[in-house]
């Protein structure tokens, strides 16, 4: 049985999301020899991840191997500070372990590594691959008539990978209705905006619909809307669900929000402290 206390209280979940943003900034800004990682990609996803991990996802912070847990695959593996923050808040890892991020020997690798830290479920970081793993997990659960669900978070930039569309084409064939993919649609990628890099990725909504998925569009920072979408996904039979969550890269720190400059960059510790004090306290 899980030891995590979950909640439907939107304000409580919003506060957890705030703490996820704080920890994402802290852990990336303290990486040695220099700040490193993807805090802005964690911050765009923080509200969705808080709603999922502290309200709907069945998991146990004290037992990563719990057989009946729901599986969550972070296909956009670079956003992994968001998960390390969740694990610290839930007590799955000691709270000061976040400061080992990206250090030699750490369980907190720059991208997820389940052999070091089993909570992360799958090694990702080469974009486009996590969704296929998630589909395999969902097929495995279906074959075993297990009742756990599989969730997967994709980036929108990540969706430029051809494998994402191989996966999108494949999953509905097997009626994988226990699979829910969430696209963190934050509109900014490594070297610019999606609009600039590959504008024909959009309309992304039409593409997923064309492949036969049950599609839900939400504001990814409206926690109640995210919870409702997750419930709608769970109630949907016969096809997998994709939630297109419209988000803001770097959400929570105005200097980082929608800023192409802050993809894959972490602020120095004093700047992180300043922003935390000003915007996230």
């Amino acid at each position: 049985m899980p030891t995590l206390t979950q909640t439907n209280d939107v304000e409580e979940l919003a506060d957890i999301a705030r703490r996820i943003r704080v920890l994402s900034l802290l852990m990336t800004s303290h990486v040695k020899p220099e700040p490193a990682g993807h805090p802005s990609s964690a911050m765009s996803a923080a509200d969705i991840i808080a709603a999922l991990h502290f309200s709907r996802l069945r998991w146990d912070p004290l037992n990563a191997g719990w057989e009946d847990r729901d599986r969550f695959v972070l296909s956009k593996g670079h956003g992994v500070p968001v998960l390390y923050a969740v694990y610290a808040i839930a007590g799955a890892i000691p709270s000061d372990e976040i400061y080992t991020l990206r250090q030699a020997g750490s369980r907190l690798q720059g991208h997820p590594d389940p052999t070091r830290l089993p909570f992360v479920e799958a090694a990702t970081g080469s974009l486009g691959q996590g969704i296929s793993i998630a589909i395999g997990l969902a097929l495995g659960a279906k074959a075993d008539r297990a009742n756990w669900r599989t969730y997967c978070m994709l980036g929108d930039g990540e969706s430029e990978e051809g494998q994402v569309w191989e996966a999108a084409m494949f999953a509905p064939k097997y009626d994988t209705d226990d699979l829910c993919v969430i696209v963190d649609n934050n509109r900014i990628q490594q070297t610019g905006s999606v609009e600039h890099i590959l504008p024909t990725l959009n309309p992304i909504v039409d593409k997923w619909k064309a492949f036969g998925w049950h599609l839900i569009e939400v504001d990814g920072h409206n926690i109640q809307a995210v919870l409702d979408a997750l419930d709608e996904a769970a109630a949907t039979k016969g096809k997998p669900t994709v939630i297109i969550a419209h988000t803001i890269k770097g959400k929570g720190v105005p200097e980082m929000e929608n800023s192409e400059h802050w993809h894959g960059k972490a602020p120095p510790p004093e700047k992180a402290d300043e922003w935390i004090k000003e915007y996230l306290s």
Partner: protein
Amino acid sequence: MSGDTATRTAFGEALVRLGESNKRIVALDGDVAGSVMTAEFGEKHPDRYFQCGIAESNMIGVASGLAMSGHIPFVASFACFITGRFDQIRMSVGYNRSNVRIVGTHVGVGIGSDGHSQMGLEDMALMRTIPNIAVIQPATGIETQKAVDYLAEHVGPAYLRLTRQKLPELFGDDYRFEFGKGRVLREGTDVALIGTGSTVTEALQAADLLEQQGVSAAVANIHTIAPIDADLLADLAGRTRRIVTIEDHSVHGGLGGAVCEALAERQPAPVLRLGIRGFGESGDPAELYERFGISARRIAIQAASFLESGAEVALIAEGSA
């Protein structure tokens, strides 16, 4: 001993047989089931068979996810299409330590008329660089059956390399497959011919030809290329002082590369590497083995020349016979 069998066919039969008793085994196809011999498994176990379409990147990832949920996936395609998804194998399978069995068929110039685009010529070299992937290439139908039996129990990712063409049977039904262990099939004192897969038979026949010239050639079958049996190789090199590797694969990075690495560290000896130089081409398999220098006749000629001249050998030029 039974008749000639393509190792892909023996794999398909073994998979069907194992599927009856081991319900954790699943198979995935990328629209080549009739060629990679997974079709019968699909007909017998439709609930454990996933047709992924011509989309191998996704297929390999799905296999990894199935393995993570406790299943034993065999994911089969042409070796050349498998290697095209090296990143998925490296990350989704290797780094995840997923219990996936990747099966690459239609290896080498031995596929014949389809030509270079369908020939798996780089697969051993690539797979060998991933730290935890076992690389196995059986030489006959029976060895394939036993290797697949083994793979159903193996812990961790594995790559199985199989031929399109039929190969003569060399073993009896009592053959025991020992993972990671090479096997000396013929003793000899002047040179050791090291084969894998289809070239084991060629090496045995080459040893006959060499014997007629008064050369005593040992022949070893290396069915496990990773991890390679360094003990056996060092022993052979110590005894014969000359090693010839023969593979239907790029001469770079496959069996020859693995043997050289092992011997350089353990028992340095001159090694003549025979394998595919340059790109493959269409042709009759036997004719191609001759043109690319891995037929019994060409092995014997090159081995004899190697013994006469020490390490200096007139190798065929890249891309020409």
